[in-house]
């Protein structure tokens, strides 16, 4: 398995990791492909021109080297972006910013892009706002996957008491 230097570098020094104090919304996603889980926290504030931007972002990830590197990368890409800009970030963007990922690891980058979308979905929903259909469709798929994963990790979640 060959990871690029960039992947290794982000894995070694992950940016924006941990839980965000005073976050506006959190996107919780899991991937049934291998069982990775990522929680992405965003803080949304208005900028000088009154646009909503992701002023701060952080994440917690249970996954492989690629999952950690893509979490780190998506947080860098989304930070400071307006919501429409952030929604437009794809897993391809994340992967290519990292200099590419092994084919078997592309689903890890999908998780990162999904987590960002989900956080924005939660934010819009929490503020009683209209939700773009792309986000909605994605949300439904993600919710179903997360249910399956919670099933899988139930024993663990109980064991670990979290």
């Amino acid at each position, binding site marked *: *398995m060959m990871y690029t230097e960039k992947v290794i570098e982000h894995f070694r020094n992950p940016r924006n990791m941990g839980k965000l104090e005073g976050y506006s919304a959190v996107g*919780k996603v899991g991937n049934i492909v291998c*069982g*990775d889980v990522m929680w992405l926290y965003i803080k949304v504030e208005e900028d000088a021109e009154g646009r909503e931007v992701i002023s701060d972002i952080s994440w917690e990830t*249970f996954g492989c*080297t690629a999952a950690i590197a893509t979490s780190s990368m998506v947080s860098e890409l989304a930070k400071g972006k307006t919501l429409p800009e952030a929604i437009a970030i794809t897993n391809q963007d994340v992967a290519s910013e990292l200099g590419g990922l092994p084919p078997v690891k592309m689903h890890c980058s999908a998780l990162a892009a999904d987590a960002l979308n989900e956080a924005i979905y939660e934010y819009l929903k929490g503020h009683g706002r209209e939700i773009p259909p792309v986000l909605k469709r994605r949300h439904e798929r993600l919710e179903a996957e997360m249910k399956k994963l919670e099933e899988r*990790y139930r*024993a*663990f979640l109980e*064991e670990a008491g979290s």
Partner: protein
Amino acid sequence: MDPDPIYLDNSATTPLAGEVIASMEPYFSDEYGNASSLHRFGRRAHAAIEEARASLAETIGVEPSEIVFTSGATEADNLAIKGLAFAHPEKRHIVTSRIEHHAVLHACRWLEERGYEVTYLDVDRAGRVEPEAVKEAIRDDTLLVSIMAGNNEIGTIEPIGEIGEICKERGVPFHTDAGQAYGKVDIPAGSVDLLSVSAHKLNGPKGVGFLYVRKGIRLSPLLSGGGHERGLRSGTENVPGIVGLAAAARLAFSERETVVPRLRGFRERLIEGVMRIPGVRLNGDRKESLPHIVNFSFAGIEGESLVMRLDERGIAASTGSACSSPNLEPSHVLVAIRVPLSMAHGSLRISTGRQTTEEEVDRFLEVIPSVVEELRAISPFKVEG
């Protein structure tokens, strides 16, 4: 990276021992003969192979004519299973376990796809096959029972002697994959009809091994050709490899009484040290285990990133996590011993070797808590301390 990397992945492969390299060297240079040739070059190569065969036979107390050289344990397993199947087409059933090496499992599956029936025996939570279950699984049309001597992922030792006796009573050939166990624990070769060994798990070279085939067991060859190895394995013999395999085996058996207790001591030390970390489980059996393999699971973290983080700290180990496997499924061995999927995700296999030092073990024990802590800090699953 640390100046001196620490290699704790000896069940993947081992470094060549100096004695082994020295034994092989002449066969890479002056002694280049083909063992089938009539002239002196050929005769010397032939003599080297026969000497190797005799000394390997001695290690398990069998006849030299019962040793067939192969390209390793994978080929030995395939020759045992498919070779027996091709020679006895009327027998259509195989008994094996869920925790075998893929060389055995996939050879069985290959036959299954061609109409064979395979019974995959369950194991207990330590990974042990119940001999009674073997007895119950045997049928009139059972071709073979294949149960490994010691597991390559979790180290569990199987009751080969008992299983062999059951097979003997029922007149069913018994194969054991001793890829990890050979040279480490006693193998009752008297209870076994077919036994696979690999050199590179033994501080020998890669790409060579042997299959012990008890006299009277009839196999069809997998390779057709010039009729080498009594027609069971055609192809010009890998003379340096075979010489190296024998040298590695001689070394392993001669120092077994000092090396094995040392590795056992390391294993205990590793278990004691690692189990102090919260949210850890030992996969496998604490006592009935190969001396060199120990497998843990860490709650809340994923094995591939654990292995990569350890690599950055200069420590080489391996994992059975889903993310590290090409098909993104967790290790079949961990699943078979009913490790919860979340814990299988965070598995780590440490395997020591004759060159491992106490300082290296202690260095690992120093590093592991902080690596686990780092990864847990970025995981959404929090583990209570």
